[in-house]
Structure formats: C-alpha cells, structure tokens
C-alpha cells in the first residue's frame, strides 16, 4: 500500500484548501507528442482534494451524475486511505471509472451540482475518480465471482461503452454473453475516436480485459447486418435476448461544393486513421494520414477539439522532423464561444496548445486544384439571431461577409447519426426520423420483443457515461426478463 497522509488539522473550513490542480504536460511539449496530457494526482494531492468534500447529508453532486456514483462515500474512503473500499464504492455504480474520470463532462454533471461550487470551486470529483480507478488498475483488478450459470444466452452488438457495460453486468448475473463487434478492436469510440493523449488505449484495453475475464466472448470482425442479422441472432443462432449498442457512427457532411476533394476528411476517418490504425506512428504502422500545414476543423464539439489537437500534433511532429514550418490549425464554428459544445477543459487545452478559433464563421464552399486537392475554403461570418427550438440563438449569415481561407486539410466534425447496417433484416424495430432506435429510457426495451438498445444508437451522439448508464439499465431489465420469461 502506498503511504497515506491523513489531513492533520481537525476540520478545515470549506474554501480553506484550494481545488487541487492536476499536473499536466506543458503545452509546448505536449503538442509534439501523443502521450497523455493530464498526468494524474499523487496520493497526497488526492487526499488534500478529498478533504475538501463536506460529506453533505444530502449530497447534491450525486443527482448530477447520470449513474449516481456514491460520490461522498468513495471520497470519504479515499481520505481515510482505505483504497480498496474507495474502489468498491466507486465501482458499485460505475463500471468504467478510469475512463469516466478522464472524459466525463464533470463541469456540467456531478461537479456542477457540488455545493462547494456555489461559493468556491467544486470538489474535483472527476480527478478523484480517475485517481481511485488508476490505483486499482495499478494493483491489478480483482475479478468478482460470477453467479452460477443460468443457461441463458445474450448477444450484445457493439463493443462501445454501452455494450461493454451491458455485457459485464449480464455476465456477472451468470448469463452467457457474446459481443459482436465490427472492427478489429473493441472499445468503440473510446478506441477509434478519443485520442491517446486524452484517453490512453491501455486504459481502454484494461477495461476490455476485465469484461473478458468475466467470461464474455468478444467476437471481432463481426458486422451484424452482414455476417449475422438480428433476425438470425434471435432465430437460428438461438440467443434469448439481444442488446444493440452500435452507437452513432455515420459521419455527416455539410453538403457544400467541394467536399470530396482530396484532403477533406470526416472526423471519423481522420481520428480512426490516427487512433485505431495508429497513423501517428506511420510508417512503423502501415496506415497513412495526410499531415496538413494549414488545417481547418469544422465544428465545436469534443470531436472537433480532438481532431484539431491531433492534427496539431501531427503537424508539429513533422515540423520538428523536417525543420519545416509549424502547423496552423483552426477551429471554424458557426456560433460563439459560449455555445461551444466541447468540454471547457478541452477548449482551454486546445487554446494553450495553439489551436486558433474562428467563431461565428461557417464554410460555404471548398476549393480544390486541378489534381483534385483541397486548397482553400470560402467562409461567411455569422451573427446570433433569435433563439431556435433548442433555445440557443440561431446563427444567421451576415450578407456580403464572405472571405477565403487557405487550407490543405479540412476535417468535418459536424456530427454523426446511427449506422443503419445493423437494421438489415431487423423488422419490428421502430426508429425516429433521425435514424435512432426507439427504446424505453428506463429499461432500454425496443418495440421488438427480446431486443434492447442503449447508448448513442438511442440518443444520438451523447456521452460515455450516458451510454454506460443505458447499458446498465438494459442489463438489469434483460436479467429480469430472462429470470421470469421462461
């Protein structure tokens, strides 16, 4: 056990101790590598932060967490130095704490509801969660005793956070679970989308290994809708229930002229090449990616930030290797800074690293050269008009404000929708006009008997923790169904 220090003063008043910052790689260094930006707290910093928690009788923080993590309890165990207990309490509600502690939008969830935040800074719940989870990973995760086999078989489609969570919970109930994953690696967006510098792939792999250790069979290279259809899984393949967690992986484009020029990427393609296929280590790895000198990233969400920061790193690596000019990477977003949907922390990280922001700007056309390569982008300035249905002020173009930007790579990060492949031979599943599946929010039940769904396939692009929560609720309902239906 690492040495622990108990806070020596009796009970510090709230606000006496400042919120503990997590050490990070300095911007000039981290923009040249793909290593994790945030380095994690030490035991000392973690306990100092844990001591800030007021241990509220009615903890409001919990209501901000989609899976209702037992926040004050795990923090208390941490401040007492009882790490195994902290792990137990944390994992009672959250299967993937090492991941959520890193990528949850805490500032709008648990931490937004922390009472300390009213007068001071909220408790750094996410950082503490990450600290406890990393401690467990370093010790080696203990595999719980599974329940005796029930003889029931469940197929889970998609190995993203929704599918992995659902599979783990069902396996722990004694059901025989098979995950079908279309890519050659499990993890979903955690593996192909979110970059190494924000979520190291060894962490994702550790969570996947844990799920496997519960007896879950993960069948890679298995595209449902092609290799098997939903009808076949429930029919000749004899599964008693199916959970659909295939996410929202279909890239949207802007439908403006010039989007098919060489050098124009969907964020999905760009990030998949860089993360899953490891193009940042080309030619050691075989998959290439275009390294731009002037890169424009369209959009303002996490996906746009991840794309911009990846492009920046590729550009810096090349500049250092070749002694050439450093890259210019610009986020082009049609609303203002206040509306940026990305996590604040990631916007700040991007800015520190040197990503430029052109807000209230929208592309209208992409230009290319004779050989089909992107060379420039015409944009128009926007201003915020009346609020739209979402309550946000609608951006409207300012007439005559167009201007040109010189670019050699454009990354389109304006959103995704569910991939329809899985719906081949899958009758009886009601879907919305956005292509998402209709499922009960509490149970995940779809309109087809024996089929559940959760995560981005139901909500459209959302968050890791909401996908996980949906996987958990569906697992509980599937377990009820399997225990009673036969």
């Amino acid at each position, binding site marked *: 056990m690492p040495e622990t220090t108990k806070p020596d003063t009796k009970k510090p008043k709230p606000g006496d101790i400042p919120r503990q910052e997590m050490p990070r790689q300095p911007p000039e260094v981290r923009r040249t590598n793909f290593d994790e930006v945030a380095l994690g707290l030490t035991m000392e910093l973690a306990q100092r932060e844990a001591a800030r928690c007021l241990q509220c009788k009615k903890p409001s923080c919990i209501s901000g967490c989609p899976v209702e993590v037992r926040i004050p309890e795990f923090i208390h165990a941490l401040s007492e130095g009882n790490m195994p207990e902290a792990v137990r309490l944390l994992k009672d509600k959250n299967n993937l704490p090492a991941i959520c502690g890193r990528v949850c939008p805490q500032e709008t969830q648990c931490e937004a509801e922390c009472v300390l935040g009213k007068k001071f800074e909220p408790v750094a719940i996410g950082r503490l969660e990450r600290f406890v989870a990393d401690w467990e990973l370093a010790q080696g995760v203990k595999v719980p005793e599974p329940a005796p086999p029930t003889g029931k078989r469940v197929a889970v489609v998609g190995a993203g956070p929704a599918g992995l969570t659902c599979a783990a919970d069902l396996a722990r109930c004694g059901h025989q679970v098979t995950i079908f994953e279309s890519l050659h690696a499990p993890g979903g967006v955690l593996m192909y989308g979110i970059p190494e510098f924000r979520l190291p792939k060894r962490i994702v792999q550790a969570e996947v290994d844990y799920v496997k250790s519960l007896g879950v069979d993960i069948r890679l*290279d298995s595209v449902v809708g*092609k*290799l098997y259809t939903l009808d076949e899984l429930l029919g000749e393949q004899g599964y008693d229930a199916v959970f659909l967690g295939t996410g929202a992986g279909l890239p949207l484009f802007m439908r403006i002229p010039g989007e098919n020029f060489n050098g124009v990427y*969907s964020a*999905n*393609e760009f990030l*998949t090449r860089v993360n899953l296929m490891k193009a940042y280590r*080309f*030619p050691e790895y075989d998959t290439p990616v275009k390294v731009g000198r002037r890169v424009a990233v369209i959009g303002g969400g996490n996906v746009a930030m991840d794309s911009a920061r990846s492009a920046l790193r590729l550009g810096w690596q090349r500049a250092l290797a070749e002694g050439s000019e450093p890259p210019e990477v610009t986020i082009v977003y049609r609303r203002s800074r206040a509306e940026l949907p990305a996590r604040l922390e990631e916007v700040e990280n991007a800015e520190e690293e040197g990503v430029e922001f052109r807000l209230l700007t929208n592309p209208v056309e992409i230009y290319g050269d004779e*050989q089909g390569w992107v060379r420039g982008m015409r944009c128009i300035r926007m201003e915020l008009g009346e609020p739209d249905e979402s309550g946000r002020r609608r951006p409207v173009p300012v007439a005559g404000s167009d201007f040109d930007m010189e670019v050699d790579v454009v990354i389109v990060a304006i959103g995704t929708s569910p991939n329809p492949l899985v719906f081949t031979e899958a009758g009886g599943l009601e879907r919305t006009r956005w292509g998402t599946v209709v499922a009960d929010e509490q149970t995940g039940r779809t309109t087809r008997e024996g089929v559940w769904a959760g995560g981005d396939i139901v909500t459209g692009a959302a968050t890791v923790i909401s996908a996980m929560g949906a996987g958990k609720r569906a697992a509980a309902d599937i377990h009820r169904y399997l225990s009673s239906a036969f």
Partner: protein
Amino acid sequence: MYPILVKEDLAPVTKLMIIETPEVARKAKAGQFVIVRDCEEGERIPLTIADFDGQAGTVTIIFQEVGKSTMHLGRLRAGDSLCTFTGPLGRPSEIEEYGTVLCVGGGVGIAPIFPIARALREAGNRVISVIGARNKDLLFWEEKMRSVSDELIVCTDDGSYGRKALVTVPMKEVLEQRNDVSRIWAIGPAIMMKFCSLTAKPFDVPIIVSLNSIMVDGTGMCGACRVEVGGRTRFVCVDGPEFDGREVDWDQLLARQRIYLPEEKLAREKFEQECCKGH
C-alpha cells in the same frame, strides 16, 4: 485468427489465397468484398471475394502486390494466419435472368468477375466473357472463366497471348455484332472501368462496375470511400461497390485513389530496404 489453407502464385505479383472462414463463407455472395489485415501494424486491405465455398467454409482472395501492404500479405504462406478477415461487405451483385450478358475482367479484375459470371450463368443467362491482361504472365483463371461462359474472348495488351487488344476492343465488337446484350459487368483497374463505361455508353446498355476506392472500415463509418455517382455522394463500401459505370465521376475516383501516393512510396521503399537486409 483466419488460417491460410492454400497459397498460390498466379503470376509473379498476383497471389491467390484460400482462407478458412466458415462464417464469412456461409454468407458470401458474388460481388461482395472482405477487409483483411495481416498483422498488428497492418492496414485494412479491401479485397473482392474471388470465390467461396459455404460447405468447405472457405473464401478465396486474389490480389496484386502493388504496395507495402499487399507485398507484405504476399509473403505469407499456407499455414500462416490473417489477423483480420471481415465480411462479407458491400451489396451483392444483382443476379437475375437478363438474357445475354457480357462480363469483362481486366487484370486482377478477372478474379471478382468469375463468381459473378458463374452466378449469372446459373441464373440462366447466356454469358459472353472478355478477359484481358497486360501480358501472358499476368493472365489467370482462363479455364475457370471458360467453364462459366458460353463464349470467352481472351486478349493481352502486348499480344503475347490471345488477341492483341485492350478489353474495350472485343467488348465494342460484341456490342456491335449483337443487339441482345442487356447488361454488362466490367471489373478491373479504375481506368479500364472508365473506358469500358465510355465504350458502353452509345449502346445504351447498363454497365455495372465495382469501384475500388480507398477504404478504412468498410462499413459506412468513415467516408474515405466516397465518390460521386449520378451527381450524389455515395459510400462505395455500403452503397456499392457496384454502380452503373455511366454515372460514376471517374476523374474524382482516380484523383481520390492518389491521395496517399507519397506515403505509399515511402512505405514501399522502407519495406524493400528491410527485405534486402534479410528480415
């Protein structure tokens, strides 16, 4: 892991592999493709299904060594395994009884045209086939093609075997001589498919081509494979790979195939250097 049961050199740079993959073999249909990867560092390589046997649980692929990834793949032997074999991807060919059909295969495109010709023949069509290659050494599967064709024309660019002609020449003659050809399939390098489409145009016959755009996932997730067909952007991996060649924006496809030329060259040079060092 997907074991390689048979490996054959059809030509110095053209390799055939029979892979043990019962699940894919069970579902495979003419016109579909697979994505393979031969090692952890490897690219995802799309290859058309050249043959399949549901009973034996095998799928045959034929590929030309054109760059680092296919050269690396070509060094594997029977007994080795592939680490990724995903499929069957894409839509199958639309096989119906059309009457008389023309199947044109160029170079490595002879491989994918074979199961299509066979399926068309089994559906009751009269199948006229044209196969061609740059020279005699690059030609393969002549007998297999003959066995599923009512008529077979063989040609080479340099005249080293069969007729000395590009495939478009006999193709045009057939279309001129008989007016009952109701559908054409043409598969080969993009440039060949482009010229076949141009040749077919005046005869007002649908010509189905199988596009080989650059891909990553092959499931509609990345958009790398996009190309304009009939003025609309389509994803080759899920909307295709077969389209009517008369509607394809060939110049865009050809340009998009060149995206990684400098990177491919670098990878290939590095690979050849390391090979020479005896790795």
